[in-house]
């Protein structure tokens, strides 16, 4: 699949989701694992878009690519905003607390990192690169 660039706006999320699901289908991921991969990418993309908008430093675009190796599918999400490592964000607290007492922060990243087999963040050439990998089913 060719890499693509999309505007870093909320209306790109549906497009990003379709791209990831398409890559997942090509990789032979089952429905549940495809869903999880899509969720992870969506959560981090959402953070990139909303965080940049809040700070007024939004990277105007997000780069998206898929690498299909024999054993795994890796989706890369890139933006040129200030360094923003999802793993450094606060973890959600009180998942066992009543909803009325819940903190709002950290849920998205928690979902993203728990959903995929492997998540990595890199800062490369002034860009944030988020890598989401899912192991492919063994060849029949």
């Amino acid at each position, binding site marked *: 699949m060719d890499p693509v660039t999309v505007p870093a706006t*909320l*209306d790109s*999320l*549906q497009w990003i*989701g379709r791209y990831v699901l398409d890559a997942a289908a090509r990789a032979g991921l089952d*429905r*549940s694992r495809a*869903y*999880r991969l*899509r*969720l992870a990418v*969506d*959560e981090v993309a*959402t953070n990139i*878009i*909303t965080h940049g908008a809040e700070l007024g430093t939004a990277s105007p675009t997000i780069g998206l690519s898929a690498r299909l190796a024999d054993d795994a599918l890796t989706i890369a999400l890139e933006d040129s905003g200030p360094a923003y490592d999802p793993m450094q964000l606060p973890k*959600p607290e009180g*998942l*066992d*607390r*009543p*909803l*009325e007492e*819940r903190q*709002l922060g950290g*849920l*998205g990243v*928690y*979902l993203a990192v*728990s959903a995929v087999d492997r998540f990595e963040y890199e800062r490369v050439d002034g860009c944030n690169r988020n890598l989401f990998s899912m192991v492919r089913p063994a060849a029949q």
Partner: protein
Amino acid sequence: MGFSATMQVTEGVAKITLSGELDAEAAPAFKAEIEKAITQRPRRLALLLDQLEYVASAGLRVLIFAKQKLGGDVDIFVVGAQPAVAETLRLTGFDYAVVMLKEYDAAQIEAV
């Protein structure tokens, strides 16, 4: 795929039907229906999710908002969640805060 949310209140029970994909772009539309429901001061809230294909944390945040605004006396029922959506609710502990039902149970939801 898009998203839609429609709300109706019958005899104190607010029902919101969600369909499509509830991501961060769609979450304000869900929140708007929750706010409409709140003005009706319902005694119960039922979220009908059998047509909801996907939910992200932005959607879950609207649930937190709903619970906080409605208060502890108003039970929230989540009806017919698809497996992946139900799994997300369990993973994030939301299954403790709402009543999860496979089907609409009028006896339970509408009981006075």
